[in-house]
């Protein structure tokens, strides 16, 4: 571009701007500044760049009072919004001890595929096979020499290999999954990635490459912090959401409520005693209000609509 301005030159320009902006400049200082300005072309370039800022301020100065009032009002509005958001969140977190996952906004914004709440999609892959994408999921798709890689930033997918195409692998911040003719589910949370293998086997490596295991059909594992751990059965069929349902077989109610919550706007809150209840059945994901009503009928629980956005689930009063 123009003459290279080193950090040192720029810092000198700033120091001069500070001196000259003080409102009390001596003739000696003025002369020293002129000498500095003429010593090198880069000095002048740096000085000009710095002056670009002044144009806007000089213009605003023609209406200094309303300009200041406007800037202050914009700031007040912004602070109010932020405080309202923070106040609401901390009140909920305090009352119910809910850990709120702030979604990774960056990926939501730049990912190849990003789904909203309760939005499920099926991607047909170029080499055959499908990737089912659950709600609140973001991912990128890359073609590599070894085949297609799906990079999951957040959320859950079911991978169904098929056709004669190369296998569809998956990676997250926690690990990498390479399948051998198979169907499997990858769920990426903040601190860990879970794998459920439905058919075939999946070669699974931690992100640092330190641990690699072959995971067979029926098994569920969690990768976190460079380690692969087998998970106890959750009682939920891992890929049931592809069909738009939750299939629970003696599952903890917390697992069912978490799955329902992921399909709803707002929050679904519940106490520990509620979380521990066991439930079996099939629930539809596209009508979570109805699923909750069914649960309320068959279990000793009560639903309370706290606000439009918050439903609280608690144990029925023992009267």
């Amino acid at each position: 571009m123009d003459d290279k301005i080193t950090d040192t030159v720029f810092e000198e320009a700033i120091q001069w701007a500070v001196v000259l902006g003080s409102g009390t400049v001596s003739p000696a200082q003025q002369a020293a500044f002129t000498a500095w300005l003429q010593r090198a072309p880069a000095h002048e370039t740096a000085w000009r760049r710095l002056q670009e800022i002044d144009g806007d301020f000089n213009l605003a100065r023609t209406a200094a009072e309303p300009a200041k009032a406007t800037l202050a009002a914009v700031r007040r509005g912004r602070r109010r919004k932020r405080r309202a958001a923070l106040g609401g969140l901390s009140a909920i977190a305090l009352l119910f001890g809910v850990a709120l996952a702030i979604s990774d906004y960056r990926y939501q914004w730049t990912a190849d595929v990003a789904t909203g709440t309760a939005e499920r999609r099926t991607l047909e892959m170029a080499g055959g096979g499908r990737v089912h994408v659950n709600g609140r999921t973001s991912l990128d798709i890359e073609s590599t020499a070894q085949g297609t890689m799906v990079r999951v930033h957040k959320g859950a997918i079911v991978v169904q290999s098929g056709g004669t195409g190369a296998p569809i692998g998956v990676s997250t911040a926690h690990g990498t999954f390479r399948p051998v003719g198979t169907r499997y589910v990858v769920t990426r949370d903040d601190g860990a990635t879970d794998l459920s293998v439905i058919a075939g086997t999946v070669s699974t490596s931690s992100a640092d490459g330190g641990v690699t295991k072959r995971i067979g059909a029926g098994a569920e594992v969690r990768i976190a912090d460079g380690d692969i751990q087998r998970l106890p059965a959750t009682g939920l069929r891992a890929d049931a959401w592809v069909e738009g349902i939750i299939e629970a077989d003696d599952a903890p109610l917390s697992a069912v409520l978490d799955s329902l919550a992921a399909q709803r706007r707002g929050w679904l809150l519940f106490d520990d005693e509620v979380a521990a209840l066991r439930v079996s059945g099939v629930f539809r994901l596209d009508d979570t209000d109805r699923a909750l009503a069914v649960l309320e009928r068959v279990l000793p629980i009560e639903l309370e609509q706290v606000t439009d956005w918050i439903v609280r689930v608690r144990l029925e009063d023992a009267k």
Partner: protein
Amino acid sequence: MTSSINAIYVEHHSWLRRFLCRRTGCMHLAADITQDVFVRLLTRDSFPEIREPRAFLARIAHGLVADQWRRAAVERAWLQTMASLDFAVPSPDEQAEIVEALVRIDALLGGLKPRAREAFLLSRLDGLTYPQIAERLSVSLSTVEKDMALAMRHFYRLLID
């Protein structure tokens, strides 16, 4: 440089429009922003090496949308200020220029710590000398000088980004 923008345009502009359509829920707005993103690219005086064009385009689009929000907030605040207080009202052209300047100033001031921001505004908008600012803010003269340098370093980093 223009040819590489051309290549990016041909390859990614439909993706960007679809992507913004999903994001904003409005086809026309998505088309407008897409156009603005490429105008922005063509009018840039420096051009970084682009390794991930889609992330790069999305970042510019994100900046444009944020700019629109900022402009709307500044315009609203300006009109309210004009309506609510007894100021001499500049001509419409002058007002438009001042609002543009305030939009850029608001962006520059974001992220600057409150005292440095206040000191800089007292200097550049009120025309106070450093000793006067020091007195107004109840700090030492050298603190004012440090805050002014801090503000200018902050602005410069934003400008060259």
